[in-house]
């Protein structure tokens, strides 16, 4: 799953990729006409709305792309960089940038595009921006408190509104389309031209506008890839095919006592439940996290068989199905719950009066197993903990 850096493409290539996407960025900016300062400020006087059209189209295109890739599980949106929110500095900084925009006629990206084709005002703007950043650095001690005020972290707009991500995508797309129509009309009025938006090729305009809306609606009504595969797996499990293989408590205990290194026992309950009790040698991966790519390798170790258990047999089976989905065919599910397992071995194991030979053997085995499993767990307490691969958010932004 993307982002491709650092797991699929080595971070060493990051600068090369920066150069390549930069070339694409510069090409697109210049082709959009952003190397012209009069075109840029046209937005603020109503005679040329190119900036708004390009900017909004680019933002909506990328946004729908991100949502679509996440929907298809091709991009892990929980680790991509999201600009942190600090409202006081974001608003004040934004207004100062707005003033810089209307006075200087550029923003940093567009000034570079202008400078590249020989615009002297572009170079002047870059020089000014560098001085401005230097000034910020010099005044930073005075500004630091204000700069750090109101930290809300990587806050997402749809969370603030309390709506679904896809609903927000639809709203933003609708706003963009409305803005394109409105500014198209204003632009013609300001330039004393007949409003050409209402004439011309209706068919093409409608098709162009409906593509993003249709994409968002499609994402809205179809299940995500994860939902889709889980539904399919559950349906197949319910129909009786694709039954996860089960292992019973005594067999598991026996295997832990004798061949623990061949098993990868995984507790899919919450970390709190895991802390309170877990089967010897077990590691903890909560069921909701099991889908995470970070665990894929762990679930597919050839020499070890996965054994899942949870708070209910259904949980263990579900975990087993997820592992199967990720390509592991040999996973097992414990046929009793974690609590049953605890009671079986660590509870009160009594031998009834006049026991049969079998009852006696089982009880003795369980007592012995409990002792042995405790020993193994204690011996393994100092071992290297294998799972906690932390997924960290990518660092980005303009720093």
């Amino acid at each position, binding site marked *: 799953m993307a982002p491709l850096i650092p797991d699929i493409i080595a971070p060493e290539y990051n600068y090369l990729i920066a150069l390549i996407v930069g070339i694409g*960025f*510069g090409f697109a900016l210049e082709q959009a006409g952003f190397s012209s300062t009069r075109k840029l400020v046209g937005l603020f006087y109503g005679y040329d709305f190119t900036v708004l059209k390009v*900017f909004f189209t680019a933002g909506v295109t990328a946004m729908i792309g991100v949502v679509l890739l996440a929907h298809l599980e091709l991009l892990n949106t929980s680790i991509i960089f999201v600009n942190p929110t600090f409202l006081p500095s*974001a*608003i004040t900084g934004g207004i100062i940038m707005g003033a*810089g925009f209307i006075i200087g006629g550029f923003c940093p990206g567009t000034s570079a595009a202008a400078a*590249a084709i020989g615009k002297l005002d572009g170079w002047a703007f870059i020089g000014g921006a560098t001085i401005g950043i230097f000034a910020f650095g010099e005044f930073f001690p005075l500004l630091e408190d204000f700069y750090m005020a109101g930290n809300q972290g990587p806050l997402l707009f749809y969370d603030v509104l309390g709506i679904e991500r896809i609903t927000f995508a639809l709203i933003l797309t609708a706003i963009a389309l409305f803005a394109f129509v409105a500014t198209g009309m204003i632009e013609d009025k300001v330039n004393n031209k007949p409003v050409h938006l209402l004439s011309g090729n209706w068919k093409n305009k409608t098709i162009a506008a409906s593509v993003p809306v249709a994409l968002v609606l499609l994402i809205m009504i179809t299940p995500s890839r994860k939902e889709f595969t889980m539904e399919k797996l559950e349906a197949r499990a319910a129909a009786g095919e694709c039954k996860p293989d089960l292992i019973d408590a005594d067999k598991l205990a026996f295997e832990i006592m004798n061949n623990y290194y061949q098993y990868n026992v995984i507790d899919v309950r919450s970390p709190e439940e895991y802390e309170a009790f877990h089967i010897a040698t077990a590691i903890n991966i909560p069921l909701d996290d099991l889908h995470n790519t970070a665990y894929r390798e762990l679930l597919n170790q050839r020499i070890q068989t996965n054994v899942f258990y949870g708070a209910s047999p259904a949980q263990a089976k579900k975990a087993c199905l997820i592992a199967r989905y990720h390509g592991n065919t040999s996973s097992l599910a414990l046929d009793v719950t974690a609590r049953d397992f605890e009671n079986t071995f660590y509870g009160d194991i009594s031998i009834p009066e006049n026991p049969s030979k079998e009852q006696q053997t089982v009880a003795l085995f369980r007592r012995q197993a409990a002792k042995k499993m405790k020993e193994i767990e204690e011996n393994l307490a100092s071992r290297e903990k294998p799972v906690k691969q932390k997924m960290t958010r990518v660092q980005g932004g303009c720093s």
Partner: protein
Amino acid sequence: MNPYLAGVLLGFVLLTTIYITGRGLGASGAMKSVAVTAVKATAPEHYESTTYYQDYEADHPDGTMQSWLVFEMLGVLIGAFFSGALSGRLGLKLEKGPGVTNTTRVIGAIFGGMLFGFGSQLGRGCTSGSALSGMAVMSFGGIITMLAIFGGAYALAYFFRKLWITR
């Protein structure tokens, strides 16, 4: 190029960047690298004793110019030059409003750049890094910054109309 087509192109560049690297585009950060490097070269003692520069140094252990955005902005210069050459827009030029002298325009560009540079540091990113990339990932702060930039420019447009539209 048709602005909507250019917008889709730009959107795909941004999407590709997010897909490959997990981060968005940026611009002002490269100018920060230049500013910090200049301070380091000209006033090393001051550089050593200022936390702001030292924080930057800590984030860029390989060198002050070894930053993702510096390489990206080198690419922007190359890509824009290539585009300008293709469309026949290369050449030394100063673009300005109808009633403005060259000196006024250059001073305006420098002063506007200073404000933009200062504001981009306060607002943690400019139109590229904060507004555009923020919109793509639906960052609350990014979209608020975008509204503040355009709102601020609109609010002040009337007072600077002589720079751009009237004589």
